[in-house]
């Protein structure tokens, strides 16, 4: 702050508060909608204040299905999403740590070849190679299971780059010291490198968890079996009610449940989240 201008400061706060309200408005409406019953949700105008059916709806969603996805409960979908998000984030971190370690600490033929091969994945988002990738997964018999949902997505150029940067900043003396003490490559990796990069691992985990949780197109292709539906992809099916009008109170409850886990992760681990965001976008 350079000069004192109370009016301008007040104006800034007003703009920010307005911004926060606009950003939060859709969520508020979601919460309100999820706390009313079916009858209220067909009367225009829709309520702006929460009703009293929140826990009934929550219970119903967690134990039963919603709309035309009746066969599988939202609780199961949450578990599927959680399993997929964890497998993707942990898988990405594990294989990227290993490959970054090999590329930074070993001299071996084709080292740069492997590096560029990993780099290329950055340029091949799943959206541009939908059909052939689907075919590979189908041929490998990985449709409708957790492996098919996660493994094809766990290659990560960004994570490999990030760990490579981290390893490059670790002083050479550490490796020399470790070798004098008789540590082999695996020992050095497990006892020194991994502990030293744990904040980066955590930051990356936050970003990758959100990435995994929010996958949409991939689960849509891979899961024909309703037991494997993830929560994010199922919402669309629910809004596409065939004959009756969509049950908005239950759909909004599902929507709320679909966004709570990643939002909680971002808000509670804000520092790590910001770190992960700025470090992976390089």
């Amino acid at each position, binding site marked *: 702050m350079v000069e004192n201008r109370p009016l301008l400061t007040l104006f800034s706060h007003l703009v920010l508060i307005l911004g926060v309200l606009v950003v939060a408005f859709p969520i508020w409406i979601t919460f309100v909608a999820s706390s009313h019953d079916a009858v209220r949700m067909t009367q225009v105008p829709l309520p702006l204040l929460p009703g009293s059916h929140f826990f009934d709806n929550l219970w119903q969603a967690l134990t039963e299905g919603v709309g035309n996805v009746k066969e599988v409960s939202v609780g199961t979908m949450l578990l599927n999403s959680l399993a997929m998000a964890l497998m993707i984030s942990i898988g990405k971190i594990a294989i990227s740590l290993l490959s970054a370690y090999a590329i930074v600490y070993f001299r071996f033929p084709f080292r740069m070849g492997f590096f560029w091969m990993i780099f290329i994945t950055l340029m091949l988002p799943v959206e541009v190679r939908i059909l052939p990738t689907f075919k590979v997964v189908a041929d490998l018999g990985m449709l409708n299971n957790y492996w098919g949902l996660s493994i094809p997505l766990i290659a990560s150029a960004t994570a490999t780059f990030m760990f490579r940067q981290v390893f490059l900043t670790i002083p050479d003396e550490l490796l020399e010291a470790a070798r004098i003490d008789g540590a082999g490559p695996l020992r050095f990796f497990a006892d020194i490198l991994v502990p030293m990069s744990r904040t980066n691992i955590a930051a990356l985990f936050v970003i990758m968890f959100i990435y995994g949780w929010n996958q949409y197109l991939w689960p849509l292709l891979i899961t024909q079996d309703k037991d494997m539906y993830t929560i994010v992809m199922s919402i669309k099916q629910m809004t596409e009610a065939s004959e009756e009008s969509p049950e908005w109170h239950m759909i909004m409850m599902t929507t709320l449940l679909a*966004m709570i886990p990643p939002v909680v992760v971002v808000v509670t681990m804000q520092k790590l989240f910001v770190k992960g965001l700025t470090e992976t976008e390089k």
Partner: protein
Amino acid sequence: MLKRVHFPPSVLPYLLVAPQVAITIVFFIWPASQALYQSLLLEDAFGLSTKFVWFENFTALFSDDQYLDAFKRTFVFSLSVAVVSMSAALLLAVMADRVIKGTTAYRTLLIWPYAVAPAVAGALWMFLFDPTLGIVAYVFDMLGYTSWNFRLNGNEAMVLVVLAAAWKQISYNFLFFLAGMQAIPKSLIEAAAIDGAGPGRRFWTIVFPLLSPTTFFLLVINMVYAFFETFGIIHAVTKGGPAKATEILVFKVYNDGFVGLDLGSSAAQSVILMAIVIGLTVIQFRYIERKVEY
């Protein structure tokens, strides 16, 4: 690149890179090369025979008005998302940079839409703007605009998907703008203030020009986001309709390939998209190399 002190050659490094490389080859490089190969083939309507047609699929695409329209639409969509989301984020970041109290609280309250999945964001906005029930549609009604229906009107559908996509991206842009502004040395701002420049003048002559690397970086990131990651929004809200009014390129690849089963054309479209991603990635990396240090 390589540590000065490193381990002697052995099979270990191969074992270490093996998982990543295996997944890359099986799920990235092989499918991508299949897409390349497929894009040169033409399959008959029953899938009984295929023949090699060189670049016919590509020339067909570029003489197809529908495809060219989808191209234009995608650019309009991406640019709108980038402009709406970046200007909102810049305004908020400028304000958050000004206030002394509460910056962290505002940041916390503004960053969480990042965590919301595109498809979920789409569902939220669709509910708000639902022609019969939505609250915003109700407000429109009261204001005398009774004909709002994004399920019938293409322009309205476009506005809705742009809003939903931009809303989700505000957090990201806000964080980067705020960080960019906080990196500008206070001495510059103070010197300008001593010379008699007011807050508005200081913003346009000092802060905004110094933010240009951040702005450019965000523009590229937002374009990439709008090109590829908004599939969920489009699929959940409009399915590319009404009458293809919101059919962006990524959605068209999916639709022609999975729904229309036109493999050659879908593969050719994939290849064009790959070229676009490669172009954008190159721009992004070249920019990073010449990153301006304050």
